[in-house]
């Protein structure tokens, strides 16, 4: 333990802090070579300033303990849902929207209570609630769309993101979540950099014209290696501490992360918009930043759950009575 934190959690946080502190020096060095165009320079600074606020907001709650981490992910989910619902227009159907938000509150409670049974019951229960509440408008025109969009957004921002949140119930919750967060962000950066260097063939030109096969493969290799290294340190001595498991986890993370990115690109193309919102200067909306996290949660959660278990040795049903 360092400062009361798992060493991996500590070093990831310290590494992110160091990277943020050093970035201005790199900008200054690049500036000295006069290779940066003024536009790119302002663009980089805006992005950097946003990271300066965003990174501590992401990292600090995960270090601050189980409940804070769970609440922070819930707030993130709520903000992502808001952005999504406003971008597609489903927010105007207040009854369905209210059920989606209620479902988010309930799943947050299930996670905070460490009540896996309720956590797994909620997706089907909330889908039922959405289709039923949508009836009360007594307006069949557009019913399928209202119900489908409500269900879709609940599954994305309540259930999928909830799996990432549930990892906080593990004894190693903080280092696992931080490693995932770091690797998901690095996955984007690796894809961007290797794509610039070796990218030739377009990955999905209709969906996301800038992504290349080279970038995707580069990210797959580098992210898997990074996560396997961190995973080895985190899961030392457990059933998961074997190269095959660690590499599979890394591959799953990189794949689901990149697919999450493509899913959001696809949604944006369908809507005909470039950014989901203008919440974060230089990045667009929160969803433009956190899209890749959405499907990493379920994939890694269930892999860890199957081979090692998640939070099995921690107190369960913390707030609810059970006989």
């Amino acid at each position: 333990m360092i400062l009361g934190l798992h060493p991996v959690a500590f070093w990831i946080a310290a590494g992110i802090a160091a990277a943020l502190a050093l970035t201005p020096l790199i900008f200054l060095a690049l500036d000295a070579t006069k290779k940066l165009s003024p536009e790119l320079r302002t663009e980089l600074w805006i992005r950097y300033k946003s990271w300066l606020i965003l990174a501590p907001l992401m990292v600090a709650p995960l270090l601050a303990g189980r409940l804070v981490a769970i609440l922070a992910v819930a707030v993130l989910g709520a903000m992502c849902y808001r952005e999504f619902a406003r971008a597609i227009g489903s927010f105007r159907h207040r009854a369905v929207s209210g059920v989606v938000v209620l479902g988010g509150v309930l799943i947050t409670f299930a996670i905070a209570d460490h009540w896996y049974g309720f956590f797994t019951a909620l997706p089907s229960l909330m889908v039922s609630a959405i289709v039923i509440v949508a009836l009360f408008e007594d307006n069949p025109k557009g019913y399928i769309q209202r119900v489908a969009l409500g269900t879709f957004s609940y599954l994305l921002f309540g259930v999928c993101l909830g799996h990432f949140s549930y990892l906080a119930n593990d004894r190693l919750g903080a280092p696992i979540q931080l490693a995932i967060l770091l690797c998901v962000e690095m996955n984007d950066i690796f894809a961007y950099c290797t794509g610039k260097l070796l990218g030739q063939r377009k990955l999905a030109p209709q969906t996301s014209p800038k992504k290349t096969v080279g970038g995707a493969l580069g990210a797959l290799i580098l992210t898997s290696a990074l996560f396997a290294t961190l995973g080895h340190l985190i899961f030392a001595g457990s059933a998961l501490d074997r190269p095959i498991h660690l590499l599979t986890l890394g591959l799953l993370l990189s794949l689901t992360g990149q697919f999450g990115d493509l899913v959001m690109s696809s949604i944006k193309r369908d809507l005909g918009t470039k950014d989901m919102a203008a919440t974060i200067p230089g990045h667009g909306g929160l969803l433009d930043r956190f899209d890749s996290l959405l499907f990493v949660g379920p994939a890694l959660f269930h892999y860890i759950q199957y081979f090692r278990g998640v939070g099995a040795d921690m107190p369960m049903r913390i707030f609810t009575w059970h006989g």
Partner: protein
Amino acid sequence: MDEWKYEPARDQHLPPDEQLKSLQREAGLPAFLTQAASRVAIRSYLKLYHRLKIIDRERLPRSAPFVMVANHASHLDALVLAAALPWGLRQRAFPIAAGDVFFHTKAAAFFSTMALNALPMWRKRCGPHALDELRARLIGEPAIYILFPEGTRTRDGRIGRFKPGLGRIVAGADVPVVPCHLDGAFRAFPPGGRFPAPVRLIVRVGVPLNFVEVSDARQGWEEVATRLEAAVSALAADALPTGP
């Protein structure tokens, strides 16, 4: 199979603090809830503290769009007119408030949005574009506007001249405009007052006017202002105590 229609929030492309000031602002679930709570609180306050009385309420149109205009004496006025609306219509009501007072700071803009559902009118630089935007939203949504054509609160209790800007919103449009008269507000909470006095407030609802035949040009806008000013003044005359 028909394609699905997505209709993004009209203020979706704006950063959060500009969304609050935008005439295209659309309330989400949180604002919807705080506005509902604030309506209950404001109405109770007006009923209990100011013994609010509404005369000829049945003259109000049954559905949006329409515009309520009145004489302007205090910051309570918009709240009073909104409270005169039946419950089902109240959530469609937007008080048109002075941008330089109600949207001057981020905190003020936040309050004006979450509690009042106000839309800003920038008195010094209110171009025709803003009025066209208001007109489009009034009819398209459809919405209910609460506005005070004098443009400012009376400093002496008398009704001032109605400005023609309102004409740009309603001239040539088939939208009822309801003249209202507010009695007691000047005594209750005049400009410069620090705290409202428990004076009775009375709203008189007039017969709705329609300006669909009026030309949407300078002359028409003036006509709208003149006719509404006359209508509100006539209601004010009713408010005076009659007989010796």
